[in-house]
């Protein structure tokens, strides 16, 4: 079957899950037409970017069983690569390509070094080292202000075709003007689909099986003759590469990049929440987790504002449901999901036949 090939034989395997995934894909595909307004389009674009980012993190955490806190570092490298190239070389496709190539090279190099240096040891050690390296990198990026724009970040022009001023046709199509923003969105969407399918292919390949074997029992995998360090490092490098591409997409979409948008530790925590709530080691969990989280991030606050106003006057309660405290509730959801359904939403749905 065609679809089976496209999804690398890894079907959702649950009716409910299939329905949700189809709804998300259709929703994202038709977002500019179904959900009007700049905010909705931004949310849709962010979901696409985070699907790639979270799926790449899942490759590492869910499939290989490695906790890295340096994932936003690679995300940031991708975003800065495009941002710096477009600022320096002017808005052309060649500059985009050069930026992505340089960023990928840097990410590969860094992830290889970190991997070889510290993947031989325990999970905890790796988590600590990556945390330290990522925080140093963040400082580094904001210190090199001549190149990276420091704390202010960089504003830049994207290639003509993607800039909001560009229009493909005079007449709006189905009530939506065919401008550069729309083209950017569809480019983003298409790349997201391709990257996701590639990652799905990777985890379902023999290579992906070895990664899962290492996750389940690295000692045994080693005894079977697989060189676990090599596989782990390779998984680390691959995942860094996909994160870099996600960062490049982010920069192209926002036409801006700064430390807070792509490098901050808050994003790292967001990714962790998304992958766990969605479902580790499932790939589809990345889609669901990213969608749920980004929507919550943008719309849960409105709901909480409503609740907070309703609770006004009571002690502490208004603070608990204050719109800025949305992360508290997602954090609690995160802790509960690690305990009670470690395979996340996807695992939960698949478990119910």
């Amino acid at each position, binding site marked *: 079957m065609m679809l089976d090939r496209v999804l690398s034989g890894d079907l959702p395997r649950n009716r409910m899950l299939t329905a949700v995934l189809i709804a998300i894909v259709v929703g994202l595909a038709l977002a500019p037409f179904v959900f009007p307004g700049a905010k909705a389009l931004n949310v849709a674009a962010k979901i696409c970017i985070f699907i790639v980012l979270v799926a790449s993190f899942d490759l590492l*955490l869910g499939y290989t*069983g490695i*906790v890295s806190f340096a994932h936003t570092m690679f995300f940031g490298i991708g975003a800065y690569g495009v941002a710096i190239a477009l600022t320096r070389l002017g808005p052309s496709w060649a500059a985009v390509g050069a930026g992505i190539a340089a960023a990928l090279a840097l990410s590969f190099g860094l992830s290889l070094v970190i991997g070889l240096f510290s993947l031989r040891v*325990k*999970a*905890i*050690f790796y*988590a*600590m*080292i990556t*945390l*330290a*390296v990522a*925080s*140093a990198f963040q*400082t*580094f990026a904001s*210190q090199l202000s001549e190149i990276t724009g420091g704390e202010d970040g960089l504003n830049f022009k994207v290639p003509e075709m993607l800039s909001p001023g560009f229009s493909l046709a005079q007449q709006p199509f189905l009530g939506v003007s065919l401008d550069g923003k729309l083209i950017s969105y569809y480019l983003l969407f298409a790349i997201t689909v391709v990257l996701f399918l590639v990652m799905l292919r990777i985890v379902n390949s023999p290579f992906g099986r070895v990664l899962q074997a290492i996750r389940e029992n690295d000692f045994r995998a080693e005894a079977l003759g697989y060189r676990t360090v090599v596989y782990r490092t390779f998984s680390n490098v691959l995942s860094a590469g996909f994160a870099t591409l996600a960062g490049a997409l982010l920069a192209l979409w926002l036409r801006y990049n700064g430390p807070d948008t792509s490098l901050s*530790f808050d994003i790292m*925590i967001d990714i*962790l*929440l998304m992958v*766990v709530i969605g479902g580790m080691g499932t790939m589809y969990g990345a889609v669901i987790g990213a969608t749920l989280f980004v929507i919550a991030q943008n719309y849960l606050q409105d709901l909480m504002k409503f609740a907070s106003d309703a609770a006004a006057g009571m002690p*502490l309660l208004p*603070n*608990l449901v*204050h719109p*800025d*405290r949305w*992360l*508290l509730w997602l*954090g*609690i959801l*995160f*802790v509960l999901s*690690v*305990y009670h359904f*470690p395979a996340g939403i996807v695992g939960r749905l698949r478990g119910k036949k």
Partner: protein
Amino acid sequence: MSSPVATTLALGALPAVRLDRLPLLLLPALALIALPLMGSFSTWVTLTVAGLAMGMIIFIIASGLTLVFGLMDVLNFGHGVFIALGAFLATTVLGSMADWTASENLLINLLAVLPAMLVAMAVAGGVGFAFERVIIRPVYGQHLKQIMITMGGMIVGEELIKVVWGPQTIPLPLPAAFRGSLLLGEAAVEKYRLIAVVIGLGVFAAMFWALSRTKVGLLIRAGVQDREMVESLGYRIRKLFVGVFVAGSSLAGLGGVMWGLYQQNVTPQMGSQVTVLIFIVIIIGGLGSVGGCFIGALLVGLLANYTGFLAPKVALFSNILLMVLILLWRPQGIYPVANR
């Protein structure tokens, strides 16, 4: 591992464990290298005291974490919450005793800071007890889950601190008599830094005594070396672990008060910021080793202050550089703990 077993043993005599002295030389070596670079002796004294003070505070915070890891293989990524909690409690306690902190009398100031520290330690210890029960106990032995769940605990804890104290930065001024500096010869040394060094040495001495001279300390050290052996001798290492965890949390609370006073303001994010520093320290020291943690903390503190003066840009990365250098020298940290 580090101490070679003597090839011939006298009957009935255990080989004395040779103290690994080389790392102890690192501190004076670093200080001596820095001396000619400074140019003036008084600057060097000022910076050395500042570095020692910073190192002592870091040690107070990090010691519990490294012991907990050594004993039960649990690394608490949420340790930072206790730091922030301690600091915020200090703002409340000291804020309510504004008269006492404004007094110029050192004794009255101490009477104000002492309850703040005690409250911070008690509450942080209590929260640590609950944290161990709710967050950590269900995931013993599962590293991946442990990392994630303690991280989740930190997110929730940080948000709860924002719920109670608000998300903004709160100033935490030093009590009046702690401000200003003393002149030692030509070198100006901030009073508070001296106090921090004294408290830090006190904590280190107390901990050293407890670990090396009491039965509980003996069990803890034995547990770090080989948990199963201690368990098979009939001791409940779980209980010991809970005790160490609570003690570590309350020390983090104390460290939080001191760090807050050192920075003179507190933010809900301070916990996660300090966490990175602490991780570097316990990696440098060797996971599970209290002595290594002490040396590591002082090295980090001294180096941060020296490089901050000599090359401010480099200072931001001095910790990482130090960590890489130490790990290249001893991949398991300064004092590798057996079985890790």
